[in-house]
């Protein structure tokens, strides 16, 4: 009997949604389990770090790693997985671009800790104890992993062979990526699964996309009503579809809400947020500078909106490797 290829599924700084999308493979997950040997998957299977360490280098065919790299321990784990695997895929937006946890890159580590562990109104912490710092106790407490100054994408820590975008990637896309490995038809290194074109090309509202859009004011979703059959942009509601890779099945649009960009930039774009900003600039219907400023000021929190999923991959909040 031929030996089944070994694979691992691991998470770093993540929410577990990418692992849920593996479970959402549904009956295909059972089929997958027949064809491969899942040697490590903390969400759903028992297995320890030492089991992983006991494997030979390169013994696994594939590691699918989701989540950004925030903690020192996560960096150690992904380096271990890299060593044990022939291929490593960044699974989902956080591993690919940094994800929502990457919004932490707009703050110092100290500010993040202080808010959560000292300032929030429910916390009673008069001595200002912070995790990882000195605290009361018996001295037998376990050591705690520290974290990096910045949230990093997976490829800012280890080499990545391909990317499966999306928050989370649709199960079909994940199935396609795993199938590509098992059937030996992986594209070039660095390949990003999903469409080659922007979401607008497959959007169910594409027929209402006008030749020219002129916007006098950007409207916020809680203070406006829109036509649920027509493109969001001419209605003044920001949708990140024009700058975002397609392949998600237009799931937010199907619920009558605009795209927020989780599939990330297209192949030829370096900075997702900057691409979207320049697209929006072309939509502004104004001649005078103060008029342009009034319209751009109607966009609340542009940093959080345009870099929602990609701050660590951007000019603004790039993650940078720091030694542990």
């Amino acid at each position: 009997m031929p030996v089944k290829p070994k694979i691992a599924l691991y998470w770093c700084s993540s929410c577990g949604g990418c692992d849920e999308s593996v479970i959402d493979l549904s009956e295909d997950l059972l089929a997958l389990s027949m064809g491969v040997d899942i040697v490590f998957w903390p969400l759903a299977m028992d297995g320890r770090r030492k089991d992983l360490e006991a494997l030979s280098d390169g013994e696994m065919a594939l590691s699918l790693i989701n989540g950004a790299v925030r903690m020192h321990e996560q960096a150690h784990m992904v380096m271990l997985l890299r060593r044990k695997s022939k291929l490593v895929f960044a699974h989902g937006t956080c591993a690919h671009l940094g994800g929502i946890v990457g919004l932490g890159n707009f703050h110092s580590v100290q500010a993040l800790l202080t808010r959560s562990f000292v300032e929030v109104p429910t916390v009673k912490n008069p001595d200002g104890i912070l995790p990882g710092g000195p605290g009361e106790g018996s001295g037998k407490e376990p050591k705690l992993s520290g974290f990096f100054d910045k949230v990093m994408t997976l490829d800012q820590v280890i080499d990545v062979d391909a990317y499966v975008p999306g928050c989370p990637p649709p199960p079909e896309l994940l199935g396609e990526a795993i199938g590509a490995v098992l059937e030996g038809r992986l594209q070039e290194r660095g390949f990003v699964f999903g469409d080659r074109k922007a979401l607008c090309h497959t959007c169910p509202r594409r027929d209402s996309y006008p030749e020219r859009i002129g916007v006098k004011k950007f409207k916020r979703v809680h203070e406006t009503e829109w036509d649920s059959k027509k493109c969001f942009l001419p209605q003044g509601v920001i949708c990140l579809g024009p700058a975002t890779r397609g392949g998600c099945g237009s799931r937010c649009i199907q619920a009558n809400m605009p795209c927020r960009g989780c599939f990330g930039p297209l192949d030829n774009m370096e900075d997702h947020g900057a691409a979207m900003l320049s697209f929006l600039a072309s939509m502004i219907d104004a001649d005078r500078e103060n008029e342009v400023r009034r319209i751009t000021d109607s966009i609340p929190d542009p940093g959080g909106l345009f870099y929602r999923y990609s701050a660590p991959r951007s000019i603004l909040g790039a993650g940078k490797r720091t030694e542990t």
Partner: protein
Amino acid sequence: MTRRIVIDPVTRLEGHGKIEICLDIEGQVDHAFFQVPEFRAFEKFCEGRAAEEMPTLTQKICGVCPTAHHIASVKALDDLFKVEPTEAAKKIRELMHTAFIYEDHLLHFFYLGGPDLFMASNDKGFGRNIFGVIGKLGKKIGKKVIEIRKRVRGLNALISGSPLYPVCGLPGGVSKPISEEERAGIKEIARDALAFARLCLNIFEEEVLANRGYLDLMHSEAYSLQTYYMGMVDRKNHVSFYDGEIRIVDPDGAEFEKFAAVDYLNHLEERVDAWSYMKTLYLKSVGWHGLHDGKGSGLYRVGPLARLNASDGMATPLAQQEYERMFDACGGKPAHNTLVYHWARLVEVLFAAERMSEIACHDDLTDPAIRNMPTQLPHEGVGACEAPRGTLIHHYETNEEAIIQKLNLLVATQNNAGAISLSVEKAARAFIKGGNVSEIALSRIEMAYRAYDPCLACATH
């Protein structure tokens, strides 16, 4: 010589965790620690964000219970803008939330915690997982589990765009109505979900309650904690997932406190430990007195068993029958054994299915009026609901432009943090004797936290 036993990582739960057990020179358990080595800081990096984005931002705290965050967040926005959702919107949100709890509880019963119930406790390694469960219960049931979860998640995709991350919540409503044609499909799914919920309770009866060894564990002192319990209830003090007041009962089952979510600061407090990123909640009026159970300790529990303990019953007939049967078998209410969480979870699965059917038939569900527009200037809002793993509270403060200035999040598993640590330590003391650390002992220690269905990404957010 003293020893440290490390379980790294803990498995079949959401998020990162490890257990360290210190043995003294006699080989007896001195201390056990349940540590969560992850932290993302939503309470900081959501500052400065547009309030209306919070339901889709904060749900990324957890990919296992995103719908609960979406619901708590959108309810906080209702309160922030002082806008009452339309009746249709309330029904659509509750349907989505209830359907989510249904499928998420099934995820735990068959994929995560359930394998502890079905597999012999000396099964090592890869036996205790969904594939092993299907091997034990048969492919027919396995396929049914997969199919019903897929259909119920499909229902939520229909309502909210994605089976995983809903995007439909807006202050005062939702973004998309439900048509009569869609209602017919929803009714069908709810009917089949109800039939499957009943089958799950039969499976529990035949495979778990008929197992003497498991029953002994379920009634054993090793897994028992006498704590306070907290859960959301409706006007009749029945379990409620979407809306209601928060009720706390004491370890004897007597009502201790009952409050509206907006008053949470008067009732709950958090403690910080330097050795974990998980903050521990406790009852403010009792105070923190260390990791102990009993009336004098502010430790309390949330989640399925706690909700049933903190309520006077279930709002639907079949779930009420199962509620009574469960407490009869446990010697009355409250039930303190942690392993009873698995049973309580299935009673809630049945309740969720019955409630889905009720909502699916309600006239308001297909009313096209799905939004009331906010008219008030925002300032502060609190929203709460029951997540599958316990009570969830979101609290936002904004400026007049509805930009978040401060937020505070009390997330389900945090409420259980102290109890989980204590349960792990108690199980470790019961199963490790004289330095003998067997695989069975370790698996039984892991059963102590897994029954809670902890979500550690939530707990640290």
